[in-house]
């Protein structure tokens, strides 16, 4: 194993988020260390996706702060998060349906584009050179995810499992340092899940990418993650390595609905 879990890179402190009267998250704190695979689990509506949305600035929490590599963000926004090297996939695939696989992945390179509109309009000098450079990078991602055969297919025509893979590819094309995965295996069959697990572990291992993962398949979560956070009704009820979480009575009652 080349990866070695390092310092804390992402630290969330007392994050609270509400929509009107609905409290989605209440005073949640946890941290993510460099190169680790950190899972967030919890029953439906526990606030897992909201948590990811807070991390990359889609939602603004009313309270709390996010400390990313020592830098304090009280107001994160998606653009800043992307610049800071956070990328993500979505629970209900959010690919650009009208574009093909290559173009979807090329959008992931957007922040690295330096040429301006005029240069692009004439396909001139820097614009042309950049297109070729980024295409080469995108092809590396395509090779990595083994989707060479569909590179020119419009993503709307792809089956669900492959769309999930392209969604991961788009996030990887950003060359993120932190990758947020929102239920990467939802709705997949066993083989597709195995493939996806392999890709996640390979990303983590080969590129050293820190991964924050939401997943419902407990076998997968317990198997691949280093540490697990458990949320229920917007509150943190457990945090620790998979074994500790598995044996935590609060977690068991939240999942099995034992009488309180």
């Amino acid at each position: 194993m080349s990866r070695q879990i390092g310092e804390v890179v992402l630290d969330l402190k007392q994050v609270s988020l509400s929509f009107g009267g609905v409290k989605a998250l209440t005073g949640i704190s946890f941290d993510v260390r460099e190169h680790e695979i950190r899972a967030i689990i919890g029953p439906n509506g526990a606030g897992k996706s909201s948590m990811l949305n807070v991390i990359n600035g889609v939602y603004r929490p009313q309270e709390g702060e996010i400390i990313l590599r020592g830098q304090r963000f009280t107001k994160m926004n998606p653009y800043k998060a992307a610049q800071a090297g956070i990328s993500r996939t979505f629970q209900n695939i959010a690919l650009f349906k009208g574009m093909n696989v290559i173009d979807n992945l090329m959008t992931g390179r957007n922040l690295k584009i330096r040429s301006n509109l005029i240069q692009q309009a004439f396909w001139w000098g820097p614009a042309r050179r950049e297109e070729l450079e980024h295409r080469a990078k995108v092809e590396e991602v395509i090779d990595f995810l083994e989707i060479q055969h569909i590179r020119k297919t419009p993503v709307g025509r792809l089956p669900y499992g492959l769309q999930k893979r392209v969604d991961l590819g788009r996030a990887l094309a950003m060359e993120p340092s932190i990758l947020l995965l929102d239920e990467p295996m939802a709705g997949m069959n066993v083989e597709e899940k195995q493939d996806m697990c392999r890709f996640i572990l390979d990303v983590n291992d080969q590129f050293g990418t820190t991964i924050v993962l939401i997943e419902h398949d407990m076998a997968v979560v317990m198997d691949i993650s280093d540490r697990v956070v458990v949320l229920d009704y917007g509150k943190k009820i457990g945090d620790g390595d998979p074994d500790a979480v598995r044996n935590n009575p609060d977690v068991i009652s939240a999942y099995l609905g034992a009488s309180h």
Partner: protein
Amino acid sequence: MLYRENGQFKTSYAADQQIFPITQDRWAIIGILVFAFVAVPLLVDEYMFRAILIPFVILSLAALGVNILVGFCGQITLGAGAFMAVGAYAAYNFHIRVEGMPLLVSLLLGGLTAAAVGIVFGIPSLRVRGLYLAVATLAAQFFTDWVFLRVPWFTDNASSGSVSVSNLQVMGWQINNPLNKYLFCLAILTVFALMAKNMTRSAIGRQWMAIRDMDVAAEVIGIRPLFAKLSAFAVSSFFVGTAGALWGFVHLASWEPAAFSVDRSFQLLFMVIIGGLGSIMGSFFGAAFIVVLPIALNQLLPAIGDLVGVEISTAGISHAELIIFGGLIVFFLIKEPHGIARLWSTGKEKLRLWPFPH
């Protein structure tokens, strides 16, 4: 049989990313350009130029602009006519107020002014979308109608806003007969179409399409909606404004605000919907459909009437023209909601496999 790409292997990304990666397509586009620039001038009479070809070329340019905004960036607009008007009147003011201003520069400055106005009227798109945005852009239409009728400065104090230009020339080349007008507009259209294609296949085009397809995901990936939307408004209005300036200067030569009424805005929107949203090719198909079909019907109906021994009155013809035209639009939208461009690409896909069905 002829349309096969067997054996055309790409060995570099540059070869794979060219506009027409298939050899037959490259020959076809060269053929079309030669036909348009060389053969058409030899074959066609003045009436064809004035009634069909020049309007077709200029409206294709405008449709390209509208397609960039509506088709590629997904921001619906009903203000295209307004931006044409801004382009035309701005070019006019540059032309008469600045001594010795070259024609081409006036036209492009007209386009740039339209781009600036487009950005202003694009600001609502940051807050509202869909039909609400359409209504917001409709405001541009009524605003420009009013400005060019009521503020005499813009029309050089001409009554009822009617202005005219004459003695058009580019570096000594007189643009005074229909043939030269056609060639001038066609040259501009060719350059602009190439620009549109280049933009839509590079980073800026991907930003527009990302905003169109899934704006939340686009933001997360580092695309700023403000820049993407307003740049689409700017580029679109630049195209539409330049087309407006050509429409005024070259096609009409003297015009009043009514030339760029809300009807024009609707016409341009229909062109891109029928031609194919998000397709460069579709803009041309749409312009051809809207410009050529009514004239073709007008010529054809009396002939058909003669054939079956019925004489149709002039009023009857113009009514029938509208009925059939409307019917065809409905038919097309039901049979192929993605426009003629989709029919075209489906046809090409079938041709590549022919004679096999799959």
